[in-house]
């Protein structure tokens, strides 16, 4: 091979982090300029949309890239959300004597929140490993059944937790494992401080999108796609299919947990078991199917549209599920691969699809 002078190490390193820097800058802009100018209602919608983008793009790693069928994504969101909520709620009580939000932008409270979200993501990833390891060894529809069961079992367990939250004085006396069983029961986990802001949503959406895109354009993501295309052929090309499927599933659960952390600390939402049940999982599946199995931009766009649509059609909210179901049927008939299929939105303007790589 000819030795061509490649880009210098500094340039390579800069390219590696550039998308994150751009995302951070955009998040700051969103937080300090766009959000204040557009009011609390629009800001809340933007944050809802961002959380749904993370959910849809992360589920797409499993249902789109790897061709498996998970229908329990809200379960992992709940694991992340409750874990993160536990950390900030009781952490704040122990540290500052009250669960209320503490400190300003990037202050102590927000750092606790960041740690809580990462903890939520880690626990959700662990749950993903426990659910994925046995069910992904088998072919076919086992994963759908197991993920559905997982979500429902989790919902019932959460409903049975203690609904009386201990006071600050009691918290200091209660051992930590026992606190974990006090998460509000069927009524929901109220009083979690509101730390989720346009900035944090923007940061996590950036991380999700960059991770998904880099995965898709590298050899790891190509292995995901190969499994979706033909599992027998993938295995014959030396791809350890079970391990790769579990990796995709764990990664997907990790980001669902992160989205759960954001959701738990969002103004105007109560973390409750019903809200994170099958209905929510189904919503995310619809986003992926509509946007395109395997399309990152497609899933993201579908997530945004399906967040805004119910707001625009407020008066029809009772018929939302009928509308979704009808939409799903139409897409399945007219364009079974979803709006964008495996491609990305920017491929639409290209005459011929370049490989999934650069």
């Amino acid at each position, binding site marked *: 091979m000819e030795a061509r002078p490649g880009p210098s190490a500094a340039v390579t390193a800069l390219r590696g982090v550039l998308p994150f820097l751009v995302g951070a800058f955009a998040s700051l802009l969103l937080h300090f300029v766009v959000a204040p100018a557009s009011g609390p209602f629009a800001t809340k919608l933007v944050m809802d949309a961002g959380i749904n983008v993370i959910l849809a793009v992360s589920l797409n790693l499993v249902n789109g890239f790897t061709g498996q069928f998970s229908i329990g994504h809200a379960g992992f969101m709940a694991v992340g959300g409750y874990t993160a909520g536990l950390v900030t709620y009781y952490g704040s009580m122990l540290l500052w004597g009250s669960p209320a939000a503490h400190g300003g932008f990037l202050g102590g409270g927000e750092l606790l929140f960041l740690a809580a979200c990462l903890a939520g993501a880690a626990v959700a990833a662990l749950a993903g490993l426990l659910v994925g390891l046995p069910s992904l060894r088998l072919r076919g529809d086992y994963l759908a059944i197991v993920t559905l069961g997982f979500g429902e079992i989790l919902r019932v367990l959460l409903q049975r937790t203690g609904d009386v939250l201990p006071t600050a004085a009691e918290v200091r006396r209660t051992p930590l494992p026992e606190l974990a069983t006090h998460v509000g029961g069927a009524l929901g986990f109220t009083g979690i401080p509101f730390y989720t802001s346009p900035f944090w949503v923007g940061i996590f959406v950036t991380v999700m999108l960059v991770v998904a895109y*880099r995965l898709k354009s*590298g050899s790891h993501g190509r292995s995901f*796609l190969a499994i979706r*295309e*033909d599992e027998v052929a993938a295995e*014959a*090309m*030396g791809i350890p299919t079970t391990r790769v499927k579990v990796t995709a599933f764990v990664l997907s659960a990790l980001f669902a947990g992160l989205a759960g952390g954001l959701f738990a600390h969002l103004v105007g939402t109560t973390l409750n078991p019903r809200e994170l049940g099958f209905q929510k999982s189904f919503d995310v599946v619809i986003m992926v199917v509509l946007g395109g199995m395997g399309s990152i931009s497609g899933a993201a766009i579908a997530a945004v549209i399906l967040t805004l649509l119910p707001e625009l059609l407020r008066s029809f909210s009772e018929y939302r599920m009928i509308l979704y179901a009808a939409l799903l049927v139409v897409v399945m008939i007219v364009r079974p691969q979803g709006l964008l299929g495996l491609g990305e939105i920017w491929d639409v303007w290209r005459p011929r*699809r370049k*490989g999934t790589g650069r």
Partner: protein
Amino acid sequence: MSGPLLSVESISLAFGGLKAVNAFSLSLGRRQLWGLIGPNGAGKTTAFNLLTGVYRPDSGTVSLEGRRLNGLPPHEITAAGLARTFQNIRLFPDLSVLDNVRVACHLDARHGLLAALLRTPRHLAEEKAMEERSRALLSLFGLEERADDDARNLPYGDQRRLEMARALATAPKVLLLDEPAAGMNPREKDELTDLIRGLPARFDIAVLLIEHDMGVVMDLVEGITVLDHGETIAVGAPAAIRRDPKVIEAYLGTGAVDEAVDEAVDEAVEGRA
């Protein structure tokens, strides 16, 4: 080490009462080209499936350079150096032609997931090397022009060639080809024959070839193993196999009459071309 590269000792597999492969043995040396023939349903593809771990043999052993392979999952067998193509083409249809080959280069990649997500220099270098190797394979098989097309849109003959390029991308020591010339026209077959002939020296591999087209097989291989109803009925040099009464009987005695006709037609066409 001076033993054979691939050594198959008396492997068998039954589907219920049907002995699909019975006591199949084979020994392949470095850079050897060997043929596996037999009428439809003889057990040829099943033998490939046994070698590559799709099925586990009921008995017998498969070893590559002295390392025992039977019992390993297919991906480990491929990583150990046994690659294959599929008789009923199994490409990754929605991926580009380039990506079909690149996927199979993943065994070259030593970087982890995190390196890929951070785009470290190592990740970039390995990705670049994989792309270059894939493009070189594509151009060897005359597919470089179609690198960006979806695999599903290739004509049949190109799909078969892409299967071969993809299998070679795993950097095998032994390549198993299941009817690579099926469905090709005589000109394509000639080109393919020349290409296969060059593979052992070019890639330092042994090739085991299943092929119904006797013209292609006889022309290429050093020796042939003939299967019929799962049994090995003859082993030997092409010239001897051609005259072997058991082989002639197997081909004429079973439902392979149409095939003999096909072949006669093929040869007639080739003769004219």
